[in-house]
């Protein structure tokens, strides 16, 4: 360039002046970190703004429901909600079979629960923990309305006709002095009034007051209360019945410690009970103990799920490695062609593949027919390959195999052929070159594929349900059973939480090993 000698500005002090500023401060003295944060804020905000709608969507439609399930696994409001007075009274009474006040409270609670038809739910819930609770609550619930407590109402009405007047009752119970003097009566009357309005749609000031309110009034008066604005009645000569006797007369079980232990154990609103149940333990008065031999099913089921998942993972490695190796070493064109054989099952409906296996593995199915025709087995010696563990393993290996082949293939594709060539040029034979040079580099692929297959298989539900029979089912199937058939949602939630914890642990390991954003789909 001929005219390159252009006069430019000399470096002046201003232009090339080096300044000595510490690494942590910007030129104006503000901390560099703060300056940087300010200049990045807009970018961060924009990125978050783009992500926010989806994040919110996932949180509401997915994360929140899972959180709700976790809560359910420890939530246990049913005893405290259905029998609030009993729970309160029980906390004052440590004897094996509690005393009279607890039975009085139970009487009030049960009458109310029966009106609301809540006692059967409670019975069902307690039945998970202690057999017979369901029929006990159902039976006593039916009987409690006919308990001989009407004698108190009759005697009080005889003593003063005002006790027969519903409007009068309403006035009495509105008086603060009376309420303070008659705590049990006030509580029972309020519950009765609510119940009358809510369940029957009637006005409490017009309906006959329930017997259990009279019983409560008798107890208050017998205890020596003197309500200021109510006719004075001497109850010392009254004929009496005791709730405890009435209950035990109705069902002996009320006189046994078992039901009381169960009630005490499940009185708190938060319980570890479902988790204990999920690992075959139970709460007893003496602390946590194993369940009866015959009821221990979950630990075994978890172990079976793990073992079968490992078997499936191992078969996937065994079958997937050679195919991935072949695909990675073939020329692109043939590899793509064979890849279709891997991708087509991957893209085909899970139910189609499961139906196929059901059809193939049946005793009257294609495989057995073929074996009989070839003569390997006799017509009466047809193999049982379905509704057992064999069926589950065969079908699930088939379904999950692409999840092993695809990551293996992508790792193997990244191993340059020059490594094996170098090993051979250094004198290694085929096997040594493979085992010492190629295989170690493909291990990350095995790791990624294995974790993926294992994660997917321990949570599987559909295939084991359809081809697993009773011996080949997984923990998922048990969870489904508790949700839709036994309705023991708490236990389903606890089992689900344990399964979730196992999966999240593996997910974490997968993230560390492969990185979530490196998940590859469809080659």
């Amino acid at each position, binding site marked *: 360039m001929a*005219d390159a000698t252009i006069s430019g500005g000399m*470096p002046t002090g201003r*232009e090339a002046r080096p300044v000595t500023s510490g690494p942590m401060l*910007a030129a104006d003295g503000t901390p560099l970190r703060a300056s940087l944060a300010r200049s990045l804020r807009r970018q961060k905000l924009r990125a978050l703004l783009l992500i926010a709608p989806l994040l919110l969507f996932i949180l509401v439609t997915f994360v929140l429901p899972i959180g709700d399930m976790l809560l359910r696994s420890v939530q246990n409001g049913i005893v405290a909600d259905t029998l609030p007075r009993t729970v309160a009274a029980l906390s004052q009474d440590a004897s094996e079979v509690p005393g009279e006040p607890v039975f009085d409270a139970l009487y009030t609670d049960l009458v109310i629960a029966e009106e609301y038809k809540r006692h059967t739910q409670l019975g069902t819930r307690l039945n998970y923990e202690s057999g017979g609770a369901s029929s006990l609550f159902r039976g006593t619930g039916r009987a409690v309305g006919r308990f001989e407590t009407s004698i108190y109402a009759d005697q009080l009405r005889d003593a003063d006709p005002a006790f027969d007047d519903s409007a009068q009752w309403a006035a009495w119970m509105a008086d603060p002095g009376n309420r303070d003097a008659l705590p049990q009566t006030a509580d029972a009357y309020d519950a009765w009034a609510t119940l009358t309005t809510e369940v029957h749609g009637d006005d409490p000031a017009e309906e006959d007051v329930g017997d259990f309110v009279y019983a409560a009034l008798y107890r208050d008066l017998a205890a020596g209360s003197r309500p200021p604005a109510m006719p004075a009645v001497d109850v010392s000569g009254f004929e009496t019945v005791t709730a405890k006797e009435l209950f035990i007369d109705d069902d002996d079980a009320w006189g046994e410690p078992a039901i009381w232990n169960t009630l005490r154990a499940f009185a708190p609103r938060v319980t570890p009970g479902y988790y204990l149940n999920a690992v075959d333990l139970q709460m007893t008065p003496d602390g946590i103990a194993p369940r009866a031999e015959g009821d221990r099913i979950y630990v075994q089921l978890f172990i079976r799920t793990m073992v079968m998942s490992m078997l499936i993972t191992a078969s996937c490695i065994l079958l997937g490695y050679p195919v991935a190796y072949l695909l990675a070493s073939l020329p692109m064109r043939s590899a793509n062609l064979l890849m279709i054989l891997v991708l087509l099952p991957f893209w085909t409906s899970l139910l189609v593949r499961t139906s196929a296996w059901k059809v193939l593995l049946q005793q009257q199915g294609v495989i057995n027919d073929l074996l009989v025709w070839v003569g390997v087995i006799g017509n009466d010696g047809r193999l049982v390959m379905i509704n057992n563990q064999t069926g589950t393993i065969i079908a699930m290996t088939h379904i999950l195999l692409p999840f092993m082949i695809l990551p293996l293939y992508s790792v193997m594709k990244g191993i340059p052929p020059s490594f094996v060539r170098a090993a051979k040029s250094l004198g290694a034979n085929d096997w040594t070159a493979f085992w010492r040079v190629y295989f170690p580099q493909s291990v990350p692929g095995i790791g990624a594929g294995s974790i993926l297959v294992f994660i997917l298989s321990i949570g599987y539900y559909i295939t084991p349900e359809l081809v697993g029979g009773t011996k080949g089912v997984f923990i998922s199937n048990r969870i489904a059973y508790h949700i839709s058939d036994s309705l023991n949602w708490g236990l389903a939630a606890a089992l689900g939480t344990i399964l979730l914890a196992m999966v999240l642990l593996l997910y974490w390991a997968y993230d560390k090993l492969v990185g979530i954003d490196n998940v590859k789909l469809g080659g």
Partner: protein
Amino acid sequence: MVQASRDAAFVEFDRVQKSYDGQTLVVKDLNLSIPKGEFLTMLGPSGSGKTTCLMMLAGFETATHGEIRISGRNINDVPPHKRGIGMVFQNYALFPHMSVAENLAFPLEVRKMDRAEREAKVKRALDMVQMGQFANRRPAQLSGGQQQRIALARALVFEPELVLMDEPLGALDKQLREHMQFEIKHIADNLGITVVYVTHDQTEALTMSDRVAVFNDGRIQQLAPPDELYEAPVNSFVAQFIGENNTLEGIVTVMDQNRCVVRLDSGDEIDAKPVNVARVGDRTKVSIRPERVEFNKSRLQPGAHTLRARVEEFIYMGDMFRTRLSVAGNDEFIIKSRNAPDQTRLQPGQEIEIGWLPEDCRALDAA
């Protein structure tokens, strides 16, 4: 052509700093003003902060501190698409899904130009880079050099006053690169646009620029026209980075206005021009360009200090001879001589006497 003057500053960096992590500064207090029409090159090793400066000017990075102004207006808060700066990217960044003509029409469409005017401008821009017949090709159907021309045309088609180029020739082979250097320079001169050009190739910087800013460690080490940069580097970094350079280390023993004597670590004394040394006793690195070293006794100035040297290696390079010497304890001392009929070819093992003009030997900082 252009007289660089601070008064006519078109682009200004005012105390600009940049940090990516809040711990270290990638650009440390940058002050630079570029007059209209200048071709300014930012030259430096990778990680010196030159590309970051360009990206801040383009608006793709925000300055952590300081102001960047164009025509006196602070553009810190102006988003890139409103800055109206043309840019040529390192990998061209041609849109792969658009044809060449569509690529060029893109900035014009954005500016809501009507069809006829758009087509005329696209045609003119393509003709300017001699790519008229490729309008309907896809970028992938073009060679690297052709893509480079299209990228250049696209950056110029909307007639920006300022064009930034981020190592635009980095991916081309040597011959094509040299050809494109001239072409870019000519186009820039003809259009009278201001160009800020980033490269790590010093030859490119020297051949194309009006001024070169040498970056190192987040600072401009020297800002000067190419000849001054080569012949009068202000510090050791610039001397080492631009062109080939011999270095001898020693201590200043005599200090004059424009002449000093340096006692080398080997004990020899030489004359030098003090550039970046202050007083007697300072340690210094003395810098001498290989082509300024003289070993023909008849051409040495009488009275000049000379050094004894031993020839280690003679390398034939076609137009030049490159000879490696061992001088004053430095056995990487290079001299270059033109391949002329009367030129001496030195033999390894030969003992010779070398010298130079004191003004060609610059005493710089010891860093």
